[in-house]
């Protein structure tokens, strides 16, 4: 077990360095230091101001190789700062990035966690129900409904939902966010609802397949022969054994709960980490972007390890080494 963990973590470290290198290459394909400066200072900034800004922020160094001082390059600086968790300040407005992270985590979580939990519960419950009543009218209708739900582009879900619930029925504010506990639910109702509906189709189908697979096993037949009721069979045998693939699906998602949902946050005006990432990409804010990607990579590795551990815990046949 220990050897496994060590191997995985070492591997993870190599991956993270790879991610940082790839990010550096990608970003400076997309934007030059001049672009970063111009986005920060505004279009009307004169060349002198741009040059000064680059000096102030360390963008006037050579990118990859500096003959005079091999470690005084932008790449070296980039790697050093990320690996020592020295996040620094945003390129767009010089805010300390740690502060921005702290501000953005809570709004993201208030959206993604309810979305995730509600989505999971609804999908599993529905899948269990139709797996139990396989090939009934309900099952067939649900299958078609799922395909229909899946076939609508998510943009239409969002725009249609905002139009219907916010404008025509006036049940919820169309967008915005206020973390005060008394009113926060008002703002989350619509994005959570739409988010759940948009993914319900494919989730139910996936879980249904999983449950059906279990249902065809021999021990289920034995259970029925023993005299268990169908609901008992589903709950006590099928669900428990189907936990493994479900767990794999679920645990891998947990790290991404922190990074936020880009589409939903953008359309519903929720100032979370997803918006922060998009703003960083559009605003050529390299300092913020690399922190987001770095943390994303760490979370991803953590998620992988957690999945494997959970898998081992749930299925006694699996051994990690």
């Amino acid at each position, binding site marked *: 077990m220990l050897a496994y963990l060590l191997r995985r973590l070492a591997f993870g470290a190599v991956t993270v360095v790879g991610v940082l290198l790839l990010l550096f290459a990608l970003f400076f394909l*997309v934007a*030059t230091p*001049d*672009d970063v400066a*111009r986005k*920060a*200072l*505004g279009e*009307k*900034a*004169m*060349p*002198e*101001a741009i040059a*000064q*800004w680059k*000096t*102030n922020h360390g963008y006037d160094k050579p990118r990859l190789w500096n003959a005079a001082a091999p470690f005084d390059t932008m790449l070296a600086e980039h790697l050093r700062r990320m690996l020592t968790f020295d996040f620094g300040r945003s390129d*767009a*407005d*010089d*805010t*300390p990035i740690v502060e921005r992270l702290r*501000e*953005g985590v809570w709004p993201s979580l208030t959206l993604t966690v309810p979305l995730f939990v509600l989505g999971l519960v609804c999908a599993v419950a529905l899948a269990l129900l139709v797996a*139990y*009543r396989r090939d009934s009218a309900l099952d067939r209708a649900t299958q078609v409904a799922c395909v229909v739900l899946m076939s609508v582009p998510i943009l239409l879900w969002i725009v249609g939902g*905002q139009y219907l619930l*916010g*404008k*025509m*029925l*006036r*049940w*919820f*504010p*169309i*967008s*915005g*966010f*206020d973390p*005060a506990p*008394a*009113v926060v639910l*008002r*703002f989350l109702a619509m994005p959570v609802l739409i988010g759940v509906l948009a993914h319900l189709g494919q989730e139910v189908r996936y879980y249904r397949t999983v449950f059906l697979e279990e249902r065809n096993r021999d021990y*289920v*037949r034995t259970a*029925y*022969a023993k005299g268990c*009721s*169908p*609901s008992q069979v589903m709950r006590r045998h099928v669900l428990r054994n189907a936990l493994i693939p479900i767990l794999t699906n679920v645990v891998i998602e947990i790290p991404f709960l922190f990074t936020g949902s880009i589409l939903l946050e*953008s*359309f519903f*005006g929720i*100032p979370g980490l997803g*918006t*922060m990432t998009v*703003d960083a990409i559009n605003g050529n804010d390299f300092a913020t972007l690399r922190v987001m990607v770095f943390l994303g990579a760490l979370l991803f590795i953590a998620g992988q390890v957690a999945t494997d551990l959970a898998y081992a815990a749930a299925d006694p046949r699996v051994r990690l080494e």
Partner: protein
Amino acid sequence: MIGRTRATRPLAPATARAAARVGAVAALLVTGLGACTNNPYPDADAAAKILYLSYPVAPKTLDPQVAYSTVDHVVTGAVFDTLLEYHYLDRPYRLIPALAEALPRPEPRADGHVTYRFHLRDGALYQDDPCFARGGAGRTTRAVEAADVAFALARIADPQVGSPVIDTFARVTGLRDFSTRLAAARADAAVAALPAHEQYARAGGIAGVRVLDARTLEVELDAPYPQILFWFAMPFTAPLPWEAVATYDGRDGRDRLADHPVGAGPFALARYDRQARIVLSRNPNWYGVRHPEWRAPGAVFPAPGARDDADGMLRAAAGQPLPFLERIEMRREPEAVPAFIKFMQGYYDTSPIIRESFDQVVQRGALTAEAAARGLRLETAVMAGVYYVGFNMDDTVVGAAAGERGRALRQAMSLAVDATEFLRLFNNGLGIPAQSPLPPGIFGYAATYRNPWRQPDLTRAAARLAEAGYPGGIDPATGKALRISFDVNNTAARALLQFQFLVETWKGLGLDVEIAATDYNQFQDKVRRGAYQLFQWGWIGDYPDPENFLFLLYGPMGRAHSGGPNTANFADPAYDALFEQMRALENSPQRARVIDAMRAILERERPWIELFHPEDYALHHGWLANVVPTSMSLPTMKYWDLDPARRAERRRAWNRPFPLR
């Protein structure tokens, strides 16, 4: 087999339980609907004079020497009072004294330098802030001094601050020397550890900025530059207390100055969650609130003068002390459509009209009956800006290098574009087709001038194109339609539609104009390499002087030449000479003649196809009073007033949740 049989028998008790559960949930939902509301604000705020606004992008910085975007200025304009400001109602725009007692006159010197002397008001205080405890325990404020303005100007010169307007202020005598001395002084670690104001003192200060006494400041320029006074109406030159800069350095958990502005304006920043919410509250220390007896021009609502005031609203407010509002609440709205819908629901007091909802609100230049019944008010005024399509004059096909042939081609293309139709399609008709770079309201604009190459006429355009050597659009060298690249920097669907309209127009001449759409960065790259032929741009003026527009075609400002904003790379020696002449003149008939001559050159050479001057508008609810549209992002919220009771009642009426109609 066994399982199947069991599955077909209905589970009566389970179903009944399930039905009961569903029923309970439904009942909860229905009662819950009563508590449903789409109001995003706390109910307690309904009775107060709070203004609600939306903003699409978060401010970048609130450091007054750095902030240069519109959103930044909404906040800095309210928090920082400047020495001068614009009269709210009079047009053309004119300056009035604010923190200064009077408008200074330029005093020429023997060596060609010019000085301006400002006298500050005695008794103006800063907002309350803990940073003033540096000057004595328990102190929360102090008087505004001339030294604070000098400090602001020194910060503009400070390379570490990175002010974007340092080039403009380089005209101040000794500013550049000061920058160099400051950088040199900082080489000494002991000096670099000092707070900013002491560093500036060590470096000796700016030679051309002299503090004569606590309230008097003298500024010296190397050469006459009448437009400098406009810069004293912008937050760049607002007095800034050294205590704030010394305290808010972002270390040890303290705020940074960019997030914690301390000014002497009518409002103070009360809350700043940049990505979501900004709150400004009335500043009780503002000179207009503390000394209403001064009847200072910047603290009293002006008389309507020549402005149309049909309903007497402006006259009723005239002479009243400012500000009227208690608080300003701003919310971030990244998407335009939801923001506008919330405005129509009464949750924002003013809003830009988005193109999609325009017909809902405006028809044939006036409010629709439905909008008027809701109490909406609409005011339009032309903005000091210009949108245009430019030619890269360095190009060999469309530019100056092609000589007479290129000129005829540009003239033909200019003759084909119908700006009125463009505005009808994309701006709902708002805007004025432009005849020259100068917009209305700027000295040198001639309302009767008609640019012969901007009166759309496809037949004449086709004839001119034939004269250029491209009959029917065919390039004789290839035998096919002449191909021109239209390099645009916006890939959004909405923008592409506008570019396609122009492409279709030129297709009518037989030209094959191809859109090469890239994002902003790649466009800048193309411009840097000179790899572009046609481009589209817009410019909104910083201050109401023709120099701020005509400099966009001044040779030394050329993009290829010096990286300046003259992206057309227009370099005509006659025009450049006239520009240098015009720049130093005060508004006079002679200046008008020079501008006319410059316009004649532009008319002939056609480096731009001028599209339109954008029209600004103020669309606001009936409970918001005293709104007058202004351009150049001027601070105007201190003039606004509102009726909270009426607003609360209208909101309730417009927003009953669906079943409870």
